[in-house]
């Protein structure tokens, strides 16, 4: 997943957390980058028509941005589910964050052929819990 898609996914989640436009602070926390980096990338995404930015309020996804954010979150859900249910990784959230930049969408699609994912994905993703609300996590050690 490329950097732009990681940002779009974060904006989508931040909009749900903030219940409105995504603030720079929430995005910086989610992405673990500096507020300056967030503002720079928001500017680029705005130029590409994926995000609308309102001063002092924050960033909102355009329809096109929302579609891409959905796909990116779905890819992320596949990675989390794969780690949690197939490789039985306890720290699947942290590892999914670390791996998402290296796992391409096409690879995630193949992994998707062996996992069981709800049809409503990614709407069932819980931003507070940082995983799908239906995800059953194995208690077995990594």
């Amino acid at each position: 997943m490329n950097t732009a898609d990681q940002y779009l996914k974060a904006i989508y989640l931040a909009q749900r957390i903030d219940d409105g436009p995504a603030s720079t602070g929430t995005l910086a926390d989610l992405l673990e980058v500096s507020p300056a980096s967030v503002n720079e990338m928001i500017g680029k995404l705005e130029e590409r028509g994926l995000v609308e930015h309102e001063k002092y309020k924050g960033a909102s996804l355009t329809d096109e941005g929302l579609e891409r954010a959905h796909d990116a979150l779905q890819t992320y859900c596949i990675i989390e589910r794969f780690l949690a249910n197939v490789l039985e990784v306890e720290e699947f959230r942290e590892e999914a964050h670390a791996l998402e930049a290296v796992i391409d969408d096409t690879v995630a699609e193949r992994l998707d052929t062996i996992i069981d994912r709800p049809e409503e994905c990614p709407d069932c993703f819980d931003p507070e819990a940082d995983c799908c609300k239906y995800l059953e996590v194995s208690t077995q050690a990594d």
Partner: protein
Amino acid sequence: MSLGQRVSSDHQLARLLQIGVVLEEVVESRAAHHLESLPADEREAIDDEVRALLAEAAEESAEHRERLETLVDDLNAETVAYEEINALVDAQYGPPEDTDGVLYDQLCNEETAYKFYDDLIEAVEASDAEFAIDRDRLLETLYDIREEEREGVEEVTEIMERRA
């Protein structure tokens, strides 16, 4: 969240290689499922060329898997057994309708594997981390496998073009 595309630790490298093993297992399992799942008339219609392609793909995946498993083992990690992945493929499997569907799936398999190794090589090359396994040996293995996946893509494409 790490926004960089690089492998920074043995743990992360082992995880990515484990994913590579699973991808190979999926290819191997789906190739076997395809032949079994086609309706009798379609199965008979599969010519020797396609049959040989699937057999070769399964064999090659098994060989790639073994090479990756050796690396994972040297990183003191474990891989998921083929039987487990085969059972998961079985549970979620939706058979292609005909031979063209089989070939298309095979093309996706080869292209995905190529992309995976290409990204992994790039992420290893971008990293200056010291791994518990020799970096040259790791990269040589990944270059070899990537090359075979590239040949695989070409081979399936040629067969598809001939049949079109």
